[in-house]
């Protein structure tokens, strides 16, 4: 069974046509990989489907806009995967 990171990295590679080997756990989806907000919707859709969750993009965006969180907290892939794992665990609880 592939890890959350592998699944997410494959989704990003396929959705945004980014070479898979450039996608690292420490990559920032926006700053390092150059993914814009529209492309991130495609990624979110694929992640939602793959994991059976609903990434709280609106809440994250609001928190970043309000200065309560940094983009690194949500868009560095390691952190994104941790959020996904948390949502999956919450779903199964």
């Amino acid at each position, binding site marked *: 069974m592939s890890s959350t990171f592998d699944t997410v990295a494959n989704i990003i590679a396929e959705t945004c046509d980014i070479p898979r080997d450039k996608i690292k756990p420490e990559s920032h989806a926006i700053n390092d990989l150059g993914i814009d907000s*529209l492309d991130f919707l495609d990624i979110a*859709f694929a992640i939602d489907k793959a994991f059976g969750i609903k990434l709280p993009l*609106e809440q994250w965006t609001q928190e970043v806009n309000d200065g309560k969180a940094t983009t690194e907290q949500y868009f560095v892939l390691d952190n994104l995967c941790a959020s996904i794992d948390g949502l999956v665990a919450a779903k199964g609880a």
Partner: protein
Amino acid sequence: MRLEYFQLIDRIVELDLVGRTIKAQAQVPDTSTIFEGHFPGHPLMPGVLLIESMAQTSGWLIIGITGFARMPFLAAVREAKLRTFVAPGQMLSLRASLLHDGSGYAITKAAVDVDGKTVAECEITFRVMAFPDPRFRTSMSEVAQRIGFPVEASANG
């Protein structure tokens, strides 16, 4: 169809908030300046307007699902297929279903039928957000009333 106002839907035929589907109708006008240019001697409903009609149909579905609290904005169109010509005066039967209700976005699949035959289809992504101005929502409510959108069902849905 009020092409001059970019309001392409004439009537909501059915809104199913449980099944997350919608059906609508729209009559292509017999005359419009659009047909003078598109095309001389061969008037056709522009494909982009067929896509817009599917977007507006999908949009009403999303407005219904959100209880008229949020507004969908067109963000992406995929797999658009325009299968045959649509001429002035033809009646369009539009349908859309919600594929995914994301956080701040939604994805629908929509199609246009004429005389029981599918003439266009596509998959559409919308950004979904609060109405940016109360006048906007008021205006949409007025359009909803005109096209028979069941505002109450949507609010209770």
